[in-house]
């Protein structure tokens, strides 16, 4: 258990440590909340080369990238639980950021593991009591570095997962070619139709997802993304929903400038 600042609860494997403070919780807008949980992964890839800021905490148009994710996720009525999975060294920054920029939402901060799969496991372990009781029926897991997943994308994956079992945002992989050993693109042989680029948030029926991760752990399996583990260890049907071209990861400097422009053009309100 780790206390990383007042006003926000920090959990390690599901144990609360600090109470909320301020008037926020009492004046928070009351409205019926849905039975889906939004999990944002801010664990990083573990391959960072410098001592700089984890990309999910970069300032972008006045807020940190991670705060935008919760802003969009929290705009619909489908999602009633919010979980941020962090690295231990980022816990205090995460707490301060959420308190300042997402005070209208109650976000549980959970310390994750060294890999993406372990961070997903930590989030599911934290949500397990609510999943077992039926309070959480769908879990949507999002990569925190994807900064422009708007409310409609969150809604689409949650509703599709509730209806069919699982949902992933996908885009046609047009313009993407494999690169050969000489570093040059290899022209596609045969059919390229149906190739897709998969994004996040990826949503699944909660009980099946929890069971799939239990089975994966027993088998010593670590998936590269949520859909991969869910499909390998459950009978869930996973359906693609239309992804968004602006929902890209922050990789190059230009991605940051582009995100800023897109947000400004949308008057800081994504569809």
């Amino acid at each position: 258990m780790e206390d990383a600042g007042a006003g926000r609860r920090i959990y390690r494997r599901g144990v609360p440590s600090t109470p909320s403070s301020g008037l926020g919780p009492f004046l928070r807008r009351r409205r019926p909340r849905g039975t889906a949980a939004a999990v944002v992964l801010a664990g990083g890839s573990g391959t960072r080369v410098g001592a700089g800021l984890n990309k999910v905490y970069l300032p972008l148009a006045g807020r940190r990238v991670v705060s935008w994710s919760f802003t969009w996720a929290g705009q619909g009525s489908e999602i009633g639980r919010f979980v941020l999975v962090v690295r231990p060294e980022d816990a205090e920054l995460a707490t301060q950021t959420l308190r300042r920029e997402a005070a209208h939402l109650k976000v549980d901060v959970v310390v994750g593991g060294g890999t993406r799969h372990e961070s997903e496991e930590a989030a599911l372990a934290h949500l397990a009591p609510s999943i077992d009781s039926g309070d959480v029926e769908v879990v949507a897991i999002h990569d925190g570095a994807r900064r422009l997943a708007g409310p409609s994308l969150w809604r689409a994956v949650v509703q599709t997962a509730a209806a069919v079992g699982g949902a992933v945002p996908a885009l046609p992989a047009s313009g993407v070619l494999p690169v050969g050993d000489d570093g040059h693109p290899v022209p596609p042989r045969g059919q390229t139709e149906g190739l897709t680029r998969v994004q996040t948030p990826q949503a699944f029926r909660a009980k099946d997802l929890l069971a799939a991760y239990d089975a994966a752990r027993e088998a010593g399996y670590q998936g590269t993304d949520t859909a991969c583990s869910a499909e390998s260890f459950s009978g869930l049907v996973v359906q693609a929903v239309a992804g968004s071209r602006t929902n890209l990861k922050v990789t190059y400097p230009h991605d940051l400038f582009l995100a800023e422009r897109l947000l400004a053009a949308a008057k800081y309100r994504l569809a």
Partner: protein
Amino acid sequence: MVSSTTDLTCVACGQECEHELVIVGRLLHSTRCTACGHVVRHEQRDLMSAYLRDLEHRLLTKPQRLVRRAVSEPLTFLLGLPAAVLRQPGKIVEELKTVLRPR
């Protein structure tokens, strides 16, 4: 003006390495690759107009943001308010100097 660093992939040297970020207000002013020094800047010709648009938006939404902070953290808000008010003019002058700085 705020400076920060993070790992990005440089378009000039191709390395994934630390980049320095300069942020004015809510606007990303420039990034610099610490390996090769390559700088990516907000386009100079629309930097000033983008900054002024952003400043206008910040000033218009300031009362709303102050109320939100006062509600969520009343004590911290009241204690920090005098210093925050005094800092504002200097902060904006610093931002303008950065925006107007030639390449």
